[in-house]
Structures are given as structure tokens and as C-alpha cells.
């Protein structure tokens, strides 16, 4: 067929500079168009506006007795809010930073010492540690114990023993008044 019909050839093989420019322009615009199509397709999978609107939650602390932990759902995950006893506070503050694998002073994690607020997600593989309910095992350090792979957290939610690499994270929160805290 080569002699009869023009052979298959690129768009801009001949025909001078003008067409080269046009083909280039079309190619560039086609690329832009592809990006412009793919971008919103990807963005649709981001959190939607109603999900973002639930990014913070308010917790009333007045009903939590000393020694009690409540579990609040925040952004789809559990948050532990613990009203710590004097003993627990003392234990948390007494721990030397040298003993910790993820050193962080208790005063940084709980600015208001009787309230400890941490995300209840084990930093190893995402399980929820036990220790919030009465009768739960609380591990060797009196805080939380993750049943999945045996991580022990202390009364400040810091990792003390086991495979987890880091302390239970402290979410950003703000005390709106003495008994009302906004998480997130």
C-alpha cells in the first residue's frame, strides 16, 4: 500500500513550522485537558463538605468521675478522655524521660493534669487498646494495654513496652470552659 496511499506518518513530519507549532499546541492542550479531567476525578474522593463539618466535637467533662475514662467518637476514631487520679498523675509525672522509648513529659501531654485526652488508636497497627472500662487489663504501667500485639501504655498514654513505636497521639483540643472541651 505504500506506493498508492500516503504511508502512515506522524502528524508533523512535513508541512513546515506552522503545523509543528499547531501539533505541539494541540498536544499541550490535550495534556492540560487530561489533567483537568483527572484532577476533579481524584478530588471527588477527598472528604466531602459534610464530613469536614464534623471534624471537631465538643465533650462535656462534668459527668466524668475521677478514675473514669469515657470514649468519644471523633473523626470516626475513639478518643479516650480520662479523669486521672492523683496516683496516676504522680506516676505519670515521676517517670524519667530516659525510660521512655518516645520521650515526652506528662505536662506536655496533659496541660491540665487531671484530664488526659488521647486518641485511642494503638500506634502499632491501629487496634483500640483496652483499659478504658472497669475491669479491663491496663498493662504493666497502669494505663492501657493493646490486646492485638501486647503494647503497654502508661497513665499518660505513653508507650512503655511492646511493639508500638510511639505514644498514643494527643489530638488538638481546647477547653471552652472548665467542663467543656472541644476536640479538633
Amino acid at each position: 500500500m505504500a506506493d498508492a496511499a500516503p504511508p502512515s506518518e506522524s502528524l508533523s513530519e512535513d508541512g513546515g513550522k506552522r503545523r509543528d507549532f499547531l501539533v505541539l499546541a494541540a498536544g499541550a492542550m490535550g495534556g492540560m485537558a487530561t489533567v483537568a479531567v483527572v484532577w476533579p476525578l481524584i478530588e471527588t474522593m477527598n472528604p466531602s463538605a459534610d464530613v469536614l463539618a464534623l471534624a471537631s466535637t465538643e465533650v462535656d467533662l462534668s459527668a466524668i468521675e475521677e478514675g473514669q475514662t469515657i470514649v468519644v467518637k471523633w473523626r470516626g476514631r475513639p478518643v479516650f478522655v480520662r479523669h486521672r487520679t492523683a496516683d496516676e498523675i504522680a506516676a505519670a509525672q515521676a517517670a524519667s524521660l530516659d525510660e521512655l522509648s518516645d520521650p515526652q513529659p506528662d505536662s506536655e501531654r496533659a496541660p491540665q493534669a487531671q484530664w488526659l485526652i488521647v486518641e485511642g488508636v494503638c500506634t502499632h497497627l491501629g487496634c483500640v487498646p483496652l483499659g478504658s472500662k472497669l475491669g479491663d487489663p491496663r498493662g504493666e504501667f497502669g494505663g492501657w494495654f493493646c490486646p492485638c500485639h501486647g503494647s503497654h501504655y502508661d497513665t499518660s498514654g505513653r508507650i512503655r513496652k511492646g511493639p508500638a513505636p510511639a505514644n498514643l497521639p494527643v489530638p488538638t483540643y481546647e477547653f471552652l470552659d472548665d467542663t467543656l472541651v472541644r476536640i479538633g
Partner: protein
Amino acid sequence: MRRALLAGLVIGALALSGGQAAHAAGETADVPDQDWQHEGVFGSFDRGELQRGFQVFQEVCSACHSLQYIAFRNLVEIGFTADEAKAIAAEYEVEDGPDDEGEMFDRTARLSDYWPSPFANDNEARYANGGALPPDLSLITKAREGGADYIYALMTGYEEEAPEGMEMADGMNFNHFFPGQQIAMVAPLYDEAVEYVDGTPMTLEQHARDVTAFLSWAAEPELEERKETGLKVLIFVFVLTAVLFVIYRRVWARLH
């Protein structure tokens, strides 16, 4: 070309006849065309008008009508600050729960909450309104033939008395534009129905315009983004297509 034109005419007529068929029932008046700032290629909403319309909705319509797809956070989109929106939300209570004892409880509304409905469910709404269900308003301008024009016409189309010879059912009101001309809703707006603080005249027409604009936004909150994006996209596609046409002609020119 001639045939193409003819075909265009046929299809145009087809489209028109299809559109008009819905109006044909009864002797209901045709809805007059209104100018809206949100119409057209460059259409956008007037924030002041939307906020006044919101005030009309809040003080008048919301007594009977729900607005279930609008959350308090959405009020930021019509020009309120987050704090103002929060303050508006704080005026309302919503049901939440169950609490630790298993009970549902009321609490102050937050930004993430949706506009509370005046009735617990459709049956209660019907019962409280003599059997007529006040429709949810969040999609009303999209859900009615004539759209915003129709809502405006309906708001301004009441008469105190039905025309002579027309038998009105019990508790019904005469409206030129409602299908069948008998509507259960009492004329909701009148001069000075709502007190504006920005000095806008407080006439029936102005109230109707404002609340219609607000409801148009509630039905199509994406309208401004849609039209802005659309303009850019269409210009882009037009230029790209023109370039492709030139390349196409040049490539094919090799054949002759």
C-alpha cells in the same frame, strides 16, 4: 443547509410543545418571565439579596416548610461569617442521642447540623396543615416547572377573593399561578411582612424576590462555581477544537 435548518425548526417546535404540555392543565395563568441575577452565562447571586431572602425564609416560611438539605454551615456561602452562622445555629435545638441512658435529648444546634424541620414527619406536617403537605423547600426552584419565575409568581399571585363563579373548597386560597388555582397555603408574604435592616423597601414584591433568590441558591448552591468553571472549560475546548480542525485539514490536504 436548507434541510438542516428545517430539521432544526422541527426539533425546536418539538422541544417547545414538550415543554408547554405541562402547563396546559386547568386555566392556570402563564408564569411571567422575571430577570434574575443568577441567570445567564455570567449569572451570580447577590449576597445581600440572599441574606434578606434567608431572613424571609427564617421568619416566615420555616414555620411550616423544611429546608432539609441546607446545614447551618452552608450559611457561610451566602455571606455570613462563621460566627454569625454559629449564632444563628445557636437559636435552634436539634435532637441528638441516644445518650448513655439510651434517651434522645435536645441540644443546641451546631454548624454541622441541618436546618431543623418544623414537623417530625410528613404525617404530622399534613395533620397540622389541614391535610396539605408543605413541601421541603431545598429543591423547590428545581422541582417546579418555571423554576424561580414560578415561585415568585406564586408568592405574588394571591387574590383576597376568588373570581366570581369560582367555587373554592374549604380552607383554600385563590392563586393565579397554582395549578388549579386553589392552594392550601395562606398568602405568606405581604408588605412589611419582614423587617429589613439594610434599608431595602419592605414590599411584597421585594420580599418575594429575595426569598426566591434565596431558594434558588438553596436548590443550586453550586451555580456560581458551575458557571465560572463552565466558561473557562468551554473557551478551552473551543480553542482546542479549532486547533484540531486546522491540523485535520492540513493532514488531509496531503491526500489531494
